[in-house]
C-alpha cells in the first residue's frame, strides 16, 4: 500500500500509531487516554476506531495520527504499531512502514517475521501481575501497559495522561489511580529495559490551543439542544445511537427548568424506526422542535412517514449517521452511501434538503440550523454525517452560541388569528413564497383547527382529488424546495492562485481532501476546493463548477451519488465533473485523493491505491 520509503530518523509530532487489540477488552480507555494526552500537549491529533460489529473478543484497531501541521485525516502509513491481539498480529506487523516501531505483548507467541522494523516485546502480564491491580480487573488494565511504554518511548508528559484519565473517569480516584499505577510501572519498566530508542518523539507545542475534543454525535445532540429541541424519538442503531444518548446525557445539565426542575423536552426510545418517525412527526406537527436520528436501515424504514411529512408539510429533522450499506452491510464502518436515499426518501415526487456538516463544530451548528430550517420551510430536513464523524473523537474549536434567534417559521396562535385581515387556510400561499401558515393543536381559536392528511387537499386543507388542485399544490411544494436553495448553508471554498481544477467533497472527508490539496500543490497541481454543505446546491456551487476546467467530486460510496445529483441538476456542467469514489469502509486518506486526481489529470500517471470505481 505504501509506495515511498520513509526515512528513518527522529520524527517529531508527525506520525501515526496503530493499536491492535481485542474488542470488549477496555482498550478504548487506553487509546483515548493516549490521544487526549497528545492533545493536551498541544499536538494536533486524530483518533479513529476501527471496530467490529461485535461486543467482545474480535480484532479492533485504533489509529492515532499526530500531525504538527494539523492534518487529521487517516494516514495510509503507520509508523508505530502496538499488537495486543494474537489474531491480528501478523496483519498488524505487515501494516508498519519499514523502520517503524513494533510493540507487542510478549505472551503472543508468534514470530516477528520482519527485520526492517524495531520490535519491542512488552511483558504485559508480568507488569500487571506485579501491579496493585485487583485480579478481576487485570484484563481491563492490560492495555495501560502499552500506554506507559509508549509514554516512555515517545516522551509523553505523564501529567497529561493523568489529565486524560481524570476526564475519562470523571474524577473518580480509584480507577484513575489503578490506571496510573500501571502506566507508571510500565514507564519505569521501559526506562530500565528498552535497549533501542524510538525514532519517533512527541514534543509539546501549541497546536491545539482553544480546541476541545468531541464527537459529531455529541455535537449534533448539543446543537439540537441549543436549537431548542423539544422532542426526540429514536431507536438504537449503530452508529447513530450516540446522538440521542448524548441528548439524554446533556439535557439535565442545560435544559432543566430552574423553577420546576423539569426538562423542557421529551426523549422517547421507540419500538422501531417506523414508530420513531411517527412520533417525531406527530410532535413536529403539534408544534414541538422535533428530530430523530438513525442510520441507513432505519432511514429506509422511515420512508413512508417522511413522504407524509413532506406532503403534509410537517417540520422535522432526520439525522442519518451513515454506515456502510447496502443492507446491514458493515454496521461499524463508515460510508457516505445514503445520499440518494435521504434526498428522495419516500414514494411519489419527494425531495428533501440535506445538510452535510463537515466537522464536529458544524454538527453543532447544523444541529440548531436544521431545526430552524425545518420550521421555516415546514418540511423534513435531513442531516447526513457518517460513522467517522459521528463516533470518533475529533479536535474542534469550541461550540459557538447560535448567532441568530430561534426561527419558528410561520405559525399562528390565538391572537394572530384574531388579528388576521385575510382568511387563513392551512395550505394557502399567502406570501407567494410557497410557504403557508400553520396552527398547532392546543390553539383554542375557533378558526385554528384543521385536518391534516396525506391525501390530496386544497388550500383550506379540505380533501380534494381535483387534478388542478393537486398539481398546483405539488408545484407549490417544489417552490419551497427552490426556496430552500437560498436558505441552506452555502459551501466553503478554499481557493489557490491559478487553480484550474476544482474538487468538491463534503462531510468527514474534509480533512483528507484539504490535505490532498496541499500535497497536490507541492506536486505542482493546484486545486480549488469546494466543501459542499447542503443540497440542493446553491448558486456558489454552480459558479464554482463553471469557473473550472474540471471538477472532481470526491465521495465515499460506489455510485458517486452526489456526482449524479449535481449532474442532473446542472446538466450543462455535467461533462466537466469527474466522479472519484472510495468505498471500503475505511476513512478516506489524502494519499488516495491525491492519487485519484493525478491518475485522471493529463500528464500524471500515478496509480491510485484502493480505487473503488
Amino acid at each position, binding site marked *: 500500500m505504501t509506495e515511498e520509503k520513509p526515512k528513518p530518523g527522529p520524527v517529531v509530532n508527525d506520525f501515526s500509531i496503530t493499536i491492535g487489540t481485542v474488542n470488549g477488552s477496555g482498550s478504548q480507555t487506553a487509546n483515548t487516554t493516549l490521544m*487526549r494526552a497528545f*492533545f493536551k500537549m498541544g499536538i494536533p491529533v486524530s483518533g479513529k476506531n476501527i471496530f467490529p460489529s461485535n461486543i467482545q473478543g474480535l480484532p479492533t484497531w485504533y489509529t492515532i495520527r499526530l500531525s504538527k501541521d494539523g492534518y487529521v485525516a487517516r494516514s495510509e502509513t503507520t509508523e508505530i504499531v502496538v499488537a495486543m491481539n494474537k489474531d491480528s498480529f501478523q496483519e498488524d506487523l505487515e501494516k508498519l512502514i519499514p523502520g517503524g516501531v513494533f510493540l507487542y505483548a510478549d505472551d503472543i507467541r508468534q514470530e516477528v517475521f520482519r527485520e526492517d522494523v524495531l520490535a519491542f516485546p512488552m511483558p504485559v502480564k508480568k507488569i500487571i501481575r506485579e501491579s496493585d491491580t485487583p485480579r478481576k480487573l487485570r484484563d481491563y488494565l492490560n492495555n495501560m501497559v502499552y500506554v506507559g511504554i509508549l509514554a516512555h518511548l515517545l516522551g509523553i508528559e505523564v501529567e497529561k495522561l493523568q489529565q*486524560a484519565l481524570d*476526564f475519562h473517569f470523571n474524577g473518580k480516584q480509584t480507577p484513575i489511580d489503578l490506571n496510573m499505577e500501571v502506566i507508571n510501572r510500565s514507564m519505569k519498566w521501559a526506562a530500565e529495559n528498552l535497549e533501542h530508542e524510538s525514532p519517533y518523539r512527541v514534543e509539546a507545542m501549541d497546536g491545539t490551543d482553544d480546541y*476541545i*475534543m468531541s464527537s459529531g454525535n455529541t455535537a449534533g445532540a*448539543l446543537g439540537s439542544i*441549543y*436549537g*431548542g429541541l*423539544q*422532542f426526540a*424519538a429514536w431507536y438504537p442503531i449503530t452508529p447513530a445511537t450516540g446522538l440521542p444518548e448524548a441528548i439524554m446525557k446533556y439535557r439535565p*445539565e*442545560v*435544559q432543566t*427548568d430552574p423553577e*420546576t426542575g*423539569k*426538562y*423542557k*423536552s*421529551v426523549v*422517547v426510545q*421507540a*419500538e422501531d424506526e*417506523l*414508530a420513531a418517525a*411517527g*412520533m*417525531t*412527526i*406527530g*410532535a413536529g*406537527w*403539534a*408544534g*414541538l422542535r422535533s428530530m430523530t436520528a438513525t442510520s441507513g436501515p432505519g432511514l429506509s424504514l422511515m420512508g*413512508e*412517514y417522511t413522504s407524509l411529512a413532506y406532503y*403534509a408539510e410537517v417540520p422535522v429533522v432526520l439525522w442519518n449517521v451513515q454506515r456502510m450499506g447496502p443492507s446491514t452491510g458493515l454496521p461499524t464502518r463508515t460510508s457516505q452511501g445514503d445520499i440518494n436515499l435521504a434526498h428522495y426518501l419516500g414514494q411519489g415526487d419527494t425531495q428533501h434538503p440535506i445538510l452535510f456538516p463537515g466537522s464536529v463544530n458544524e454538527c453543532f451548528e447544523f444541529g*440548531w440550523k436544521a431545526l430552524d430550517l425545518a420550521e421555516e420551510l415546514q418540511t423534513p430536513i435531513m442531516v447526513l454525517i457518517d460513522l467517522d464523524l459521528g463516533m470518533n473523537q475529533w479536535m474542534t474549536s*469550541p*461550540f459557538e*452560541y*447560535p448567532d441568530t*434567534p*430561534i426561527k*419558528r417559521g410561520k405559525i399562528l396562535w390565538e391572537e394572530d388569528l384574531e388579528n388576521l385581515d385575510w382568511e387563513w387556510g392551512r395550505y394557502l400561499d399567502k406570501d407567494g413564497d410557497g410557504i403557508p401558515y400553520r396552527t*398547532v*393543536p*392546543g390553539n*383554542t381559536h*375557533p378558526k*385554528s*383547527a*384543521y*385536518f*391534516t392528511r*396525506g391525501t390530496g387537499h386544497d388550500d383550506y386543507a379540505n380533501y380534494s382529488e381535483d387534478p388542478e388542485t393537486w398539481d398546483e399544490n405539488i408545484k407549490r411544494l417544489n417552490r419551497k424546495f427552490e426556496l430552500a436553495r437560498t436558505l441552506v448553508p452555502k459551501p466553503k471554498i478554499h481557493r489557490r492562485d491559478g487553480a484550474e481544477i476544482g474538487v468538491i467533497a463534503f462531510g468527514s472527508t474534509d480533512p483528507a481532501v484539504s490535505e490532498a490539496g496541499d500535497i497536490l500543490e507541492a506536486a505542482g497541481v493546484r486545486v480549488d476546493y469546494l466543501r459542499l454543505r447542503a443540497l440542493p446546491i446553491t448558486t456558489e456551487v454552480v459558479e464554482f463548477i463553471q469557473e473550472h476546467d474540471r471538477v472532481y467530486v470526491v465521495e465515499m460510496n460506489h455510485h458517486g451519488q452526489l456526482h449524479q445529483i449535481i449532474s442532473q441538476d446542472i446538466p450543462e456542467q455535467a461533462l466537466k465533473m469527474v466522479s472519484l469514489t472510495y468505498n471500503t469502509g475505511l476513512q478516506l486518506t489524502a494519499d488516495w485523493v491525491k492519487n485519484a486526481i493525478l491518475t485522471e489529470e493529463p500528464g500524471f500517471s500515478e496509480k491510485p491505491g484502493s480505487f473503488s470505481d
Partner: protein
Amino acid sequence: MARKKRVNELGLSKSDYAGASTTLCAGCGHNAIIGQMIAACFEENIPPEKLVKFSGIGCSSKAPTYMLKRSFGFNGLHGRMPSLATGALLADMSLIGIGMSGDGDTASIGMGQFKHIMRRNVPLVYVVANNGVYGLTKGQLSATAEEGLALKRQGQNKYMPIDIVWEALVGRASFVARGFSGDPKQLKTLFKAALHHRGTAVIDVISPCVTFNNMDDSHHSYAWGKIHEVALHELSFVPPGKSIKVKYEKGETAEVTLHDGSQIILKKLGRDYDPNNRGAALQLLEEANKKNELVTGLIYINPKQISIFDIEYLPPSPLNRVPDEELRPSRDSLDKVNAMMF
C-alpha cells in the same frame, strides 16, 4: 327533544361537535361510532378545541373527518396512528386524544404500535372499529376474521383470529372495553369513561361492514352481534363533580373512580364481574371465545396505572407554548458544556 337540551354547559350545540358529512356506506357500523363519539363529547361538555383526533388508514380511519370539525385532526399512515398520537399529545398534555383505527389497521400492519402505545400508557381513547375485513380496499380478510369466514374473491379464512381485547389485556392496557355498533347506548357510556381516563383506553368496537362482511353468520355482522352479545354489566357514567342520579340497591352495582373523580357505575347483569382483575378477564375471554360469545362492556380498568404524562419529566404548561427565549439554553450554559468536553 326539549329546546333547552340543545346546548351543553359550554353553550355549544351538538352541531358544534359534528364533522363533514359522512361518505361511508349507508348502514356502516362506523357511522354509529361517529355518532356516539359526537354525543359523548357533547354531553361531557368537552370543548372541541381540547380534543385532537388521530387515525390510520381505512374506512374506520376516515371517521375523524366526520366528527368534531372544530378539533385538530391528523389522518396518518396505515397502522401507525399510535406513534403519531404519542408524539403529538406530548406537545400539550391538556388535550384529549381520540385515536380511530380499524381491525386491519390495528391488528395487521399496526400490531407493533398498538402494543407499544399500551406499554407507555399514552392517554388516548383508542377505538378499533372492528369489522373483520378490509373495507376500504374492498373486502379482503383481516386478522380479526374468524376461522372459516368466507368472503367473495378471498375464499375461506384459514388462520386464527387475533382478539383485540385479549391482546390489550396482556399488553397491559389500563382500560380495555368492547362495544358493538348495534348497542349505541353502551358505546356512548364507554366513550365517556374513556375520555376521562388518564391512560390508553382501548375500545374494540364490533362495527359491521355492510358492504363486505355483514352475512348473518359472520362474527362481525349486525345479526350475529345482536344474537351473541353478552353485556357484562349495565354501564353509566358520572362526570367529575356530579353525583349519581339513579339509586341502586346495595350490592347491585360497583363503581370505578377515575383519576379526575368521575365515576363509572357498573350495574350487575347476570354474572359477577370485576373489571379490576386482569387474570379473570383473560379467563373470561378464553371461555367467551370458545363459546362464541360477544362479551361487551368494561372488561378491565386500572385507573391508577401511571401514564406517560406522569412518567416524562415535563413542566405543567404545554410544551408547544414554551416561548422562544426559554427554548434555547443560555449562553453561559454553553460555556459550561464546552468546558465539559475534553
